[in-house]
C-alpha cells in the first residue's frame, strides 16, 4: 500500500532537465531530486543533443548553470520547453531572443547574490590596497623575522571609486564603500535619478577621475571588452581595477599587459575571459588578487538560491507567477 503511494508520488513529480550542471546541484542535488524528477545528461554516455532527443522531448522546464551556453541549437532539442531557470544573476549565456521567440520564460537569481558579490568586491579591493593575501603569504613563509617590515600599502579612505554599471550589485558596493570614506561616481547606460552619486556618461572620463574602478555590469554585445587599453590607461599607474562581473567585459590581454608594464597599480579579479583558465602572467604579480569566480559561493547564498529555484519551478508547475522573471529589456 505504502509502496503504491510512493510510486504515484514519483510519477507526480514534475520533470526538469538540468544543464551544466550548476554548482548548486552539487550541494543541493539530492533535495532537488526529491522534489522534481531531474534528467541529468552528464551521467549519460550520450552526447547532449542525443540525450535530449531521446529523453527530453516532453520536458517543460530546465535548470541551467550560469556558464552553460543555452543556444538555439540546444533549444531545438527541447521542443516542449516553456521555462528556463538559471542559477546565475547574469543571463549572457542564454539566447534571450530565441527564448522570446519560442515563448520560453527565463527566471534568474535576481538580487539574492548581490550582498555576497558586493562583499567580495570590497574584500578584493582591500586585499589589493592593503596587501592582505601578500602579507599573509609573507608571514606564513616565515619571512617576517628574517626580512623585517612588509612594504606599505595604500589607503582606501578618501579615494574616488568609479562603478561601472550601477545595478543591484553596483549599488550594494557603493553603499559599503561610502562607509569607508570613498567618493562614489558611476558610468551606466542611463543616469539613475534616484541616486546622488556623480554620473559620467563616458567610461573613459569615469576612469580618468577614479582611483578605483569596479566592474559590475552585465555582459552584453555592447559591454564586451568595454574596459580596453584606453580605459585602463585613463585609470592610471596608481589605479586599481576590481572585476566581479564577467571576464569578457575587460580586454584581458590588455589588462595583463598594463599590469605587467605598471600602467595600472593593481587588480582584484573574480572572473576571467576563459574560466577556469587564468593568464599565468598574473601569478607572478604581487599587486593582483585572484579568486575562482566564487562571488556567490557562500553557504547562505546557495541555500537562498536553492529556495529561489524551487520557488520558481513550483510556481511554474502550479501556474503561478514566477518569483524572478527576467523582464524583456
Amino acid at each position, binding site marked *: 500500500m505504502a509502496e503504491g503511494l510512493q510510486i504515484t508520488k514519483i510519477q507526480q513529480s514534475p520533470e526538469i532537465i538540468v544543464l551544466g550542471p550548476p554548482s548548486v546541484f552539487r550541494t543541493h542535488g539530492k533535495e532537488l531530486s526529491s522534489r522534481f524528477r531531474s534528467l541529468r545528461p552528464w551521467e549519460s554516455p550520450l552526447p547532449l543533443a542525443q540525450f535530449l532527443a531521446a529523453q527530453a522531448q516532453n520536458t517543460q522546464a530546465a535548470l541551467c548553470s550560469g556558464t552553460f551556453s543555452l543556444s538555439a541549437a540546444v533549444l531545438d532539442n527541447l521542443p516542449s520547453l516553456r521555462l528556463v531557470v538559471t542559477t546565475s544573476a547574469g543571463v549572457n549565456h542564454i539566447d534571450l531572443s530565441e527564448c522570446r521567440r519560442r515563448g520560453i520564460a527565463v527566471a534568474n537569481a535576481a538580487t539574492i547574490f548581490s550582498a555576497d558579490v558586493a562583499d567580495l568586491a570590497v574584500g578584493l579591493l*582591500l586585499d589589493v590596497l592593503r596587501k*592582505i593575501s601578500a602579507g599573509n603569504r609573507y608571514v606564513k613563509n616565515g619571512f617576517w623575522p628574517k626580512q623585517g*617590515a612588509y612594504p606599505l600599502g595604500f589607503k582606501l579612505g578618501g579615494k574616488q571609486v568609479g562603478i561601472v554599471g550601477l545595478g543591484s550589485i553596483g549599488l550594494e558596493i557603493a553603499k559599503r564603500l561610502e562607509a569607508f570614506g570613498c567618493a562614489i561616481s558611476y558610468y551606466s547606460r542611463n543616469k539613475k535619478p534616484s541616486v546622488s552619486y556623480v554620473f559620467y556618461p563616458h567610461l573613459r572620463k569615469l576612469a580618468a577621475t577614479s582611483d578605483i574602478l569596479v566592474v559590475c555590469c552585465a555582459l552584453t554585445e555592447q559591454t564586451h571588452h568595454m574596459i580596453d587599453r584606453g580605459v585602463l590607461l585613463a585609470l592610471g599607474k596608481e589605479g586599481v581595477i576590481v572585476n566581479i562581473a564577467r571576464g569578457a567585459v575587460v580586454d584581458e590581454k590588455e589588462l595583463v599587459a598594463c599590469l605587467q608594464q605598471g600602467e595600472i597599480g593593481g587588480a582584484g579579479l573574480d572572473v576571467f575571459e576563459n574560466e577556469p583558465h587564468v593568464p599565468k602572467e598574473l601569478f607572478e604579480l604581487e599587486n593582483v588578487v*585572484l579568486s575562482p569566480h566564487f562571488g556567490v559561493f557562500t553557504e547562505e547564498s546557495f541555500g537562498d538560491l536553492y529556495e529561489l529555484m524551487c520557488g520558481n519551478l513550483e510556481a511554474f508547475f502550479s501556474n503561478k507567477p514566477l518569483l524572478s522573471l527576467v523582464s524583456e529589456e
Partner: protein
Amino acid sequence: MVGVAKLVVMDPKGRLVSGGSSAKTGIMQKSIKESTKMLATLVRRAKSQPPITLTCNLLHISQLISTHPLHHNFSTTTRAPPPSAAAKMEAVGVLMMCPMNNYLEQELDKRFKLFRYWTQPKQREFLAQHAEAIRAVVGNATAGASAEVIDALPKLEIVSSFSVGLDKIDLIKCKEKGIRVTNTPDVLTEDVADLAIGLMLAVLRRICECDKYVRSGAWKFGDFKLTTKFSGKRVGIIGLGRIGLAIAKRAEAFDCPISYYSRSEKPNTNYKYYGNLIELASNCDILVVACALTPETTHIVNREVIDALGPKGVLINIGRGPHVDEPELVSALVEGRLGGAGLDVFEKEPEVPEQLFGLDNVVLLPHVGSGTIETRKAMADLVLGNLEAHFANKPLLTPVV
C-alpha cells in the same frame, strides 16, 4: 628653563659622578645664583680630583666654566652667538628606538641630532655616553620608553610615539618626571578600521586561500568550496574608542548588527552594550579587539572568551598581541574549537606561532594596521610636529601626558 641651570658632572669615561646629597647621579638643577656658588665648590674640589666634565645649558655659566683651566673636557648644549630656532633644534639629541619609517628617520636626522638605538651593539654604554645630549625619544609599538630607558636619560623631556598605542611607554614614570608624551591618534583610525574589515572578509570568504587556489592551478580541477557570508553577521567590538567606532560604522554598511564591550556604556550610540565580555562573545559571530593595551586588558581574550565565541566564531585582533592569550588561541584554532582568526598583532612580534601557518581559516599579517604610505607620512609629520612644538615652547599637537 629661564633662571635654572642644569649641571651634569661626568668623569673622563663619560660616567656620571656622584657627590653631595643632591648630586647622586651627577645631575644638578639649580638656580643661577646657586649654580655659580656650586661651580666655585666644584672647581675647588676638582683641584684634588681627576678632571671632570661640566656641561651646562645656560650660556653665561658655560662661559664661566670654559674660562677655567682646570676643566679639560668641556661641552655645552648651547653656543654663542644665540642660535636660530633651527640651529638650536639641530643640537637637540633625539633617540630613535628602532627603524620605523625612512621619511621620519631622514627628517629627524635633518632637523635634530639623531641617535639610532638599534645600531648600537652595547646599548647601556651608548645611553650613558649620550645621556647628556638626548632630550627626546621617538618610539613605536615595538619599542618605546621603558622605565630603564627613562632612568638612563636624565635630560629626557619628551617621548613622541610613532603609534597611537602607549603600552610601550612607562606613563607613570613620565608623569612623575614631568616628561611630555605624544602619540599619533586620528590619522591612523581609518586605516586600522579598514584592515579590520579586510581581515573579516579575508577570513570568512577565504580570499587568501582562493588566491592561492587559483595561483596553484587547482581551479582547473574543480570549484572552490562554499564559504561564509559576511553581510549580516553579528560583530562584537571590544573597546568602542575611535577605532572601534570606525569599525562599527563600516560593518553597519554590510548590515552587520553591532554590539560592544567597554569599561562603561557609551552614550549616543545605538549599538548594544554588554557589561560582560563572555556575554558579548557568546552573542556575536565575529569578535574584534579594538581597545588600548593596559594591565587590565592584557589577556582579556582568554580561554573562556574563546570558548564563548565558539567553533563558528571568528576573532580579529588589530589591537596588541598581549590582548589575547596566544597559546590558548593557537590550540583553539588547531583543535577547531574556534572557527577562524584574522591577526595583525602577536605577543612577540615578529615571531608568529608556526602552528597557524597551515590553517586556511587563519589570516596573518605583519602588523600593518597603519601601514599605508599616506598614513605613515601623516604619523611621521605628527611626531615631527610635536617635537618641534615642544622645543619651540609651543603647545604640543597631540599630547597624552
